[in-house]
């Protein structure tokens, strides 16, 4: 299956899901003539039609990355960051994130560690101190 077709299938399936979800809404009472279903259903239908047009095989194949492992690894690093931010605290988690991303971008280990530490400290100062938006302290603050 070409990438274009895959996209078409994705869009049609998403549209179907959106329409089904809209139709199954339980509306307490009709507060306005149009209601909450009509508009999203119409838009989803339009999107489904566009998706169907893409089912005609055409267009580029999904280009395989030069470094196949890098994008999934980066996603993993980011997801770990989202989950560990609160337990580890902003300073530690952000330093680890930045070190990880720097390594993925081909930094030498020492340079990556430097980048990580500086990024994390600067951002902490900016958000927590200057903007007064508290960031999680994690185990360091306990």
């Amino acid at each position: 299956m070409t990438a274009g077709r895959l996209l078409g299938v994705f869009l049609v399936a998403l549209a179907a899901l959106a329409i089904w979800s809209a139709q199954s809404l339980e509306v307490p009472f009709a507060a306005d003539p149009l209601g909450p279903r009509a508009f999203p259903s119409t838009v989803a239908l339009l999107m489904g039609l566009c998706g169907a047009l893409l089912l005609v095989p055409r267009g580029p194949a999904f280009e395989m990355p030069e470094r196949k492992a890098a994008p999934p690894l980066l996603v993993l690093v980011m997801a770990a960051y989202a989950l560990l931010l609160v337990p580890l605290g902003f300073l530690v988690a952000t330093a680890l994130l930045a070190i990880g991303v720097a390594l993925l971008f081909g930094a030498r280990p020492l340079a990556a560690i430097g980048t990580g530490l500086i990024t994390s400290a600067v951002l902490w100062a900016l958000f927590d101190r200057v903007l007064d938006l508290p960031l999680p302290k994690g185990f360091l603050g306990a």
Partner: protein
Amino acid sequence: MNSLRGRTGETSMQRRALLAATALMPFAARAQGFTPQNPECIAPAAPGGGFDLTCRLTTRMLNETGIVTQPIRTQNMPGGIGAVAINHINAQRRTDANVIVAVSTGSWVNMAQGRFGRFAENDVRWIGAIGADYGVIAVRRDSRFTNLGELMAALRADPASVPMGAGGAVGSQDWHKAALIARAAGADPRRMRYVPFEGGGQSMAALLGGHIQVFPGDASEVRGQFEAGEIRLLAVLSAQRLPGALAQVPTAREQGVEVDWPIVRGFYGPPQMPDAAYNFWVDAIRRLQANPAWPEARSAQGLFEFNLVGAEYAELAKRRTAEFRQLAREVGLVTQTQ
């Protein structure tokens, strides 16, 4: 910076000692048993939202007056108009003594409609109210309605004949004002023509532009247009007339309509907040209300005096939520997740 902090700490200690000595505050002595550590105010909104200002401005006053000497930081926790915050409190900080959460009448409406998941009015400790804004019924200056009675008559005859609009969704606190008026007129709230707009500003524009006939807004947001003679206020939804520029506007009660709509802003704490801490915060709000600098700071937030703390505030929160639940059931607004 440090010396500054030290100094304000000292004066407030003296003030606190003074207050305790004069025994003005029955809780003051007991509250001494608790000292907050890194206290926080959770604003269930992004920076700039209504709850955000409640937190930032109130905690600033608590610190400035020395009622609370430890700097209180504001943490933003938007999501589900307070749903995320109440879940966070109940899941992770049930016994936290150092956190208070901003809350308003709008939150009670959401609790009543089951929008806060499993949690509602009995899953928090109600600390105190800091003030209230009041609902008003606004029409354009050339409106066919000159008093609340005429509007009620029109609604009674045909609730769909009067297009009304305000800043909240159907079921929101803005909608409730319109719904309660319609219900008082003997009309079915489900049949009224309520048009939700994006905020009070756009509703006011729609009123001035003649697209809607009635704007059930809040006193603080319509004052400018009222003073300029652009709009007429049919009623304020408060028990007594409001002070200041709005004093000439009659209440709904004066016109024989039993509808009040205070938008009460205040704070709650976690469900198992220790008593010493709870009493400390209740006492802090009480002392804030008694502070001579507070009235000005309060009206700067667009709030009128509404002093209710501790048990009395809890009673109000629970009573109002029960009333809203009743109305939500009547019109079928309670969500299935309850």
